[in-house]
């Protein structure tokens, strides 16, 4: 099984890093029926793995990514990379998701723009890029595709499926759709469904992209353009919702970029400069159609929708079998603690094992990506319980 980093390069990096990693691609020829009614005849999933799969194949952990995430969750692609993968604070030797114990799989979801089949891929039926014609994918579709990747890697049951934000929603869907294939679930900074306000922010982001003249109804790639201004605006709006008012205040306050006000519409305040920088960077690295798809997947997610009783969410969670860890962050106003608590209450009503902690953090929604001692401690404690019992199999044989 892929142990995707070599020993000699590892020594150059921090001892708690998974080191250098190389993504792999899995190609699937079995058609995937999507929730929207369309079928994807064939597709690729790009993924990375960290750690080693044990002989019994019982120590696999699946990492699900958030809105703008991808398969590169930990380690480095090149020795001179400035930043490690997006969840490197929690994945690595001795970290909460301990790669000395676990075989961690992290993939780029369908519809993504980092190597898995998505709007930037070719549509075999038309010979064109998929562009805006890439079918709408849902959290449930992603989970089904992830299950196929698990099949491919010979993993019958995950020791844990974990994720933050939109990633946490995939974890929830896993527990409902494949209860027998998931032994533990960590749902972090997530929500059982988006609020009207959440959808409203997403719609502003989408309109920013779609109203950019360079968007060309989604066929921008064929016109060799990128709707950069739209993407930049979308990211700027999104970014505001990821940070808390306090975090923004303490990071930037009303600091000026230079000594004087300009009495114009250029950049006066540091926070403007920061947002523009974030937007610019994002607009050159992320695909606009993917952003539209991913925000729609967020909006559509609502496992309770099929149940119309007062306890609809609890009913939706009835199939789940695994223990849950639900974490929220005090200053997160995108998916505030009350939304996690809603999920926890539903799990309690459904009689499922669940633990919940509301981590004190000033960093808003972004807190799920950042190092925090209490978060690390409780996540580690939960993951250590998820470690497969090495004696379990022999006990089973005896009985």
């Amino acid at each position, binding site marked *: 099984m892929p142990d995707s980093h070599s020993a000699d390069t590892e020594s150059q990096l921090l001892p708690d890093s998974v080191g250098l990693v190389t993504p792999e691609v899995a190609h699937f020829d079995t058609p995937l029926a999507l929730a929207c009614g369309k079928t994807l005849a064939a597709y690729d999933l790009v993924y990375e793995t960290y750690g080693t799969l044990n002989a019994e194949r019982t120590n696999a952990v699946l990492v699900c990514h958030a809105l703008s995430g991808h398969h590169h969750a930990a380690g480095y692609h090149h020795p001179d990379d400035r930043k490690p993968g997006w969840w490197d604070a929690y994945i690595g030797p001795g970290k909460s998701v301990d790669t000395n114990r676990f075989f961690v799989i992290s993939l780029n979801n369908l519809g993504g723009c980092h190597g898995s089949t998505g709007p930037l891929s070719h549509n075999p039926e038309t010979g064109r890029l998929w562009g805006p014609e890439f079918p709408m994918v849902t959290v449930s579709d992603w989970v089904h595709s992830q299950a196929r990747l698990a099949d491919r890697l010979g993993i019958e049951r995950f020791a844990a499926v974990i994720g933050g934000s939109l990633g946490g929603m995939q974890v929830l869907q896993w527990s409902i759709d494949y209860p027998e294939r998931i032994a533990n679930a960590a749902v972090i900074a997530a929500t059982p469904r988006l609020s009207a306000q959440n959808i409203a922010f997403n719609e502003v982001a989408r309109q920013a992209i779609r109203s950019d003249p360079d968007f060309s109804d989604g066929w921008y790639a064929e016109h060799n353009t990128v709707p950069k201004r739209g993407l930049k605006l979308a990211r700027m709006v999104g970014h505001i919702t990821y940070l808390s008012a306090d975090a923004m205040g303490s990071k930037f306050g009303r600091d000026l970029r230079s000594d004087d006000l300009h009495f114009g519409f250029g950049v006066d305040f540091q926070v403007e400069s920061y947002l523009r920088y974030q937007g610019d960077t994002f607009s050159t690295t992320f695909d606009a159609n993917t952003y539209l798809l991913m925000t729609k997947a967020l909006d559509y997610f609502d496992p309770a929708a099929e149940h119309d009783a007062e306890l609809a969410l609890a009913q939706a969670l009835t199939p789940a079998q695994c223990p849950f860890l639900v974490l929220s962050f005090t200053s997160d106003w995108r998916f505030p603690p009350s939304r996690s608590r809603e999920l926890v209450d539903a799990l309690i009503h459904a009689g499922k094992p669940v633990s919940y902690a509301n981590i004190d953090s000033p960093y808003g929604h972004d807190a799920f990506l950042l190092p925090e001692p209490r978060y690390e*401690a409780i996540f580690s404690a939960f993951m250590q*319980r998820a470690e497969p019992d090495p004696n379990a199999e022999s006990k089973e044989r005896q009985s």
Partner: protein
Amino acid sequence: MMRADLNIIYDWIAPDAHVLDLACGDGVLLENLARHKGVTGYGLEIDPDGITRCVARGVSVIEHNLDDGLASFRDQSYDQVIMTQALQALRRPDKMLHEMLRVANEGIITFPNFAYWRHRVHLGLRGYMPVSKSLPHAWYDTPNIHLSTFNDFEHLCRDQGLVIVDRAVGVGNHRGHWTSRLWPNLFGEIAIFRVRRRL
């Protein structure tokens, strides 16, 4: 080894019961109940270290401030609800008692008995607010804002129409001596009650 009051409670919980443990601490009671008596349920706790230790034990624990009530728990959804050493720290112990017997058929409550003889000596003879093993804080930083006695609690139960099914005392780290069973209000350091709603 568990605290004396936890051992008594352990014996009072029915096998395979579904329980709620309010202020479950590090989860040692729930872990023992789950392991040896097939008990299921949840602990509520507010202390971050306690919560992490519960998770490490595999105990289902919910971060929750008891002063926020139990609104998210449905009527009679548990067999027994436990609250150890938290009654005295609540803003409204009477409301919590009512809530406990809304969500469960039976409530088990322990609290430091303010009328314990050592406490009486502290206050009555020496003229100081009592400080003891069961009341370790100074008056100015104590979380214990509603101290009461065996007698007080029995009054409250009577007022709320509750039946006291069982009563026990803990002294220090062991069960009460015969003197404390005979005169609990004087010799019982920890009051332990088992109450139900009158049918």
